[in-house]
């Protein structure tokens, strides 16, 4: 029989949470992850369609065995209304990235073309620097980041992923269902 002693292979998992918008809710959730030894890759939190609820998207690096355990532990936190792992094939995920590049003005048109390829835009320009804004899934942003490296990246700021499930299923506040 299986005894859970050795951790299995790790991969990224996206967990979506609907939480009551109460003081300390973020630290309760983040604290649970750290004290149970779960690695957070990214965590985002923001308002929802109802002001008394927030939605969180947490990406964790875990074995699939542990991820079920995480979901059940998180569900036990009192402010957590609903929590679910979103499977890669069932979700739409997006991330926002801002990249500041220090580069002479002569490169700007080349960068503009590159940005266009990635449906990114240039949102700030000064004589020797500019800021590229891009949205997309993590893979696309990684690729863009890679292409921009050659131009002298000064700063990168990525929002972490947000995700919703495809189709009609929701994690919605109870009386909205």
């Amino acid at each position: 029989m299986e005894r859970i002693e050795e951790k299995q292979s790790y991969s990224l998992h996206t967990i979506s949470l609907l939480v009551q918008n109460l003081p300390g809710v973020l630290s309760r959730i983040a604290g649970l992850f750290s004290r149970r030894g779960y690695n957070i890759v990214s965590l985002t939190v923001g308002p929802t369609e109802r002001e008394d609820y927030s939605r969180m998207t947490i990406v964790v690096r875990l074995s699939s065995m542990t991820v079920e355990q995480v979901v059940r532990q998180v569900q036990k936190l009192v402010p957590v209304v609903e929590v679910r792992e979103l499977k890669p094939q069932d979700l739409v995920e997006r991330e926002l990235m801002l990249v500041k590049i220090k580069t002479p003005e002569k490169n700007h048109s080349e960068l503009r073309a590159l940005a266009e390829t990635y449906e990114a835009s240039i949102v700030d320009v000064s004589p020797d620097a500019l800021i590229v804004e891009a949205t997309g899934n993590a893979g696309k942003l990684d690729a863009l980041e890679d292409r921009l490296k050659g131009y002298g990246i000064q700063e990168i700021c990525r929002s972490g992923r947000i995700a919703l499930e495809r189709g009609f299923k929701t994690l919605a506040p109870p009386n909205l269902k």
Partner: protein
Amino acid sequence: MAKEKMTGAQALLRCLEAEDVEYVFGVPGGAILPVYDALFEATHREGAKLKHVLVRHEQVGAHAAEGYALATGKVGVCFATSGPGATNLVTGIADAYMDSVPLVAITGNVPQTLIGTDAFQEADITGITTPITKHNWLVTDVEDLPRIVKEAFFLARSGRPGPVLVDIPKDVQNAVFEFEYPETVNIPGYMPAPKEPPRLAEAATLIRSATRPIVYLGGGVRTSGSYAEVLAFVELVGAPVVTTVHGKGVFPETHPRCLGMFGMHGSRYANYAVQDSDLIIALGARFDDRVTGKLAAFAPEAKVVHLDVDPAEISKLVTATVPLVGDLKALLPKLHAEVQKTFEARGRPDLAPWLARVDAWREKHPLRYVQEPDGPILPQKAIEVIYERTRGKAVVTTGVGEHQMFAAQWYKSDYPRQFITSGGAGTMGYCLPSAIGAQLGRPGELVIGIDGDGSFQMTLQDLATAVELELPIKIFVLNNLFLGMVRQWQELFYENRFSATPLKDCPDLVKLAEAYGCLGLRARKLEELEPVVEQALAHQGGPVIVDIRVRRQEKVFPMVPAGAPLNDMIGGE
């Protein structure tokens, strides 16, 4: 209920009265003064049911509330002031969290204008206790107070019980508002219903197919009070029973099917039976490392039916072949009916060879000790004498250490809520405080403590509390002048380097008892043991402290070394 104008402090006490709280254990202080002022009126008025017990240290207040809760099945309540008062509760709260004890801790805090300014006696107690409570609240508006207290009691006692903490700033205690106690709670998402119906038929099929089943009972049976259901189920299935330390007494330990406690200091026969089983039926238990031994080698051939109210316990450590999530009291009868149906359709499994094998282990490897008539008193002997003289009927509380494991092995518990101990957290100093709480919760009954000299010295100042309340508790200190359990590990695994484990013969426990105004007795030799135990039990009035000098290096056997498989035991052959 009509609304009534009052302060937050008065409202808090009205909430406690509405929750039928009998005892609050606490220590006052600056930031909780308004509550204590209201308490003066609430406990002194005609017909008052609420009583406050002044303890000498907040940790004792928390443990006493735990002892009360475990002895009665009700919620324990404790009070502390801000800062150090609140942080002194932390060990007790952590203990209650590990052992799923319903506890409501109420703390005062500095006024909200001072919160976050490093004010005198300020501590972020909600931040500090977040990892060790089911939930906690900082009350920022007095209007929220009744709802929060209602939720606090509801959360503490429902589902898998546990501690909660309500932190009330002083200005909220003083604020005046229209009080009304809510009748219901609304916590969306708390204890969601399982998504699938319980797989009862599958569980019944596993039970029917097993030839070496074992029933493993944990503290969840005590929480749910499903003693009759468990007894009926075990009699139907016909399997042997093992328990955790918190499962002691939920099934009569002298029942022929009961093998008692298993795990690190379980009997050889209990551990062999678990390890050799082909089906473990776990009821309200969580496969703690102290019972499984080396996890990868745990019961290698056993499938697992795991019934627990907490879904997060399912497949946390041992994968459940069939998980059954729900309240034992509701779910076990359904499993019972399903098993009965299966047995009627397909006949009962023949467990005779298995039971014979288990009995052979029991005969070959009983728990044993050899008391030399001229030798020092053995701790096992002391507990057997106490067991006999109390006819196995005392409510027993313990500290943590060797004496605790000796007590678990030798004080057989036939009755639920009879054995009160710190299991998960292993908090030394637990014995006296929990005895105080247990005795208050069960006033007509005999409450005894079995403690160690190290453990006793961690909370002994609260003898004053027991004396003040004239509690007839009897604390038997198995005194070996060591921090014994650590010394045992040093003997076995650290080549007898007794680093910081010998204790000086100090204080004189008899004189100490007398200094507190209670009876102190001592037994040094075997012939003194029975008379002293008799005298302690016969004593009327306040507490008795019995200093029983036991063999200094007696070890608890058998023992599964940490990290070893369950059947790989030292000693007790």
